[in-house]
């Protein structure tokens, strides 16, 4: 994680960028206010209201910033954007890691993305529910209509990654033929005590594809089984 200027972070918390814009009605409103005679009565009370209102606004903004963070619906996938724009001209889908910013930084450093030092990168949750690491500061997520990533994998997400690994390994270590595939997948589901998951058998078995593969789709609570390449 990069250490950021606190004032820059505070500036990034503004959820309503249009507040800084002016409209033709603004001048008219200002003229009306100036034309009114200043009143001294109730000045203290108004100051109290202004102070209270400001405090509430600050608390509200801070709450907005906290609540505008999100976790991914699919903790298995991570995508590295090459530019801060949507739609993305080129992206890199890589396995999820504990520090997604570091994982994408590595692609910049080894020349896979660009040919210079990595810029400031920020982890967001994109509109598809996966973590997207995007060039830009903390505001870049909001600018693209995304949430900021919550910053760490939860225990449940870690468990989900372990489950997906074990499921894939179970089916790649040996040839599991079609009649045995559902039971083998169910055994892994039971081991991880996952409730409400379903298994979909996509088939496609031929003499050249007699064994099975299996993969988890966490966002759908689904395990997919299909034939895989190679005879047993």
């Amino acid at each position, binding site marked *: 994680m990069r250490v950021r200027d606190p004032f820059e972070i505070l500036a990034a918390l503004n959820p309503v960028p249009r507040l800084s814009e002016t409209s033709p009605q603004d001048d008219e409103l200002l003229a009306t206010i100036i034309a009114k005679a200043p009143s001294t009565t109730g000045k203290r009370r108004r100051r109290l209201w202004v102070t209270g209102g400001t405090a509430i606004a600050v608390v509200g903004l801070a709450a907005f910033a906290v609540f505008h963070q999100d976790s991914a619906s699919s903790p298995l996938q991570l995508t590295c954007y090459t530019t801060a724009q949507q739609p993305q001209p080129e992206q890199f889908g890589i396995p999820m890691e504990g520090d997604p910013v570091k994982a994408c930084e590595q692609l910049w450093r080894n020349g896979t993305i660009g040919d210079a030092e990595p810029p400031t990168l920020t982890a967001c949750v994109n509109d598809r529910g996966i973590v997207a690491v995007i060039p830009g500061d903390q505001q870049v997520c909001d600018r693209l209509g995304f949430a900021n990533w919550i910053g760490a994998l939860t225990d449940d997400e870690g468990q989900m990654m372990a489950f997906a690994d074990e499921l894939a*390994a179970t089916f790649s270590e040996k040839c599991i033929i079609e009649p045995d595939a559902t039971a083998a997948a169910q055994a892994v589901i039971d081991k991880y005590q996952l409730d409400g998951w379903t298994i979909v058998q996509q088939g496609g078995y031929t003499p050249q594809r007699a064994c099975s593969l299996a993969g988890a789709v966490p966002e759908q609570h689904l395990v997919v089984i299909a034939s895989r390449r190679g005879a047993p």
Partner: protein
Amino acid sequence: MKRLLGGVILATSVIIATPGAHAARTSAERTARSAWFEDHWLDLTVSWEQATACDVQPDLTICYRTEAAMNAELAAARTAMAFTTLTACSTSLRLYDGTTYTGTVLNLSIRATVLNLSNYGFDNLTSSYKVGGCDSDFYSAANLGGSLYTGSTGAGSQAPSMLSGWNNVVSSVYVY
């Protein structure tokens, strides 16, 4: 991954070198009456056909014409297993929105995972592709459903356009 790699250690195989080895064959009858031979199943209690060596595993028996062929296959399988437990392919699968490798690009190096292209905003967009260092399968529907793309998608293959009927059709992929 450490736990996963630990799980890759091969179970000891029972190898029957010749059909004439009576003791070994008796063992085979106990553990695996059916065996896979080239492109079909054998009933070992009836005939070995041209097979002379079988690799008996707890879940499956595979027979070969020669012992040398069996040894070569087992060595290749061990290498493949060590490889498939890694979660990232060394060079990624590249899907292009345009034909002849043009347009927006999606690079995928995640292995052994169901990759729904809608997660990347790339559903029904693929018009050309380059496969990286790992074999890949393309499907017309999400979650490896629909039809399997029958064009060449082995490691290192590429195509400047899709087979007839497959332009802007791929919805999910699996990288081995």
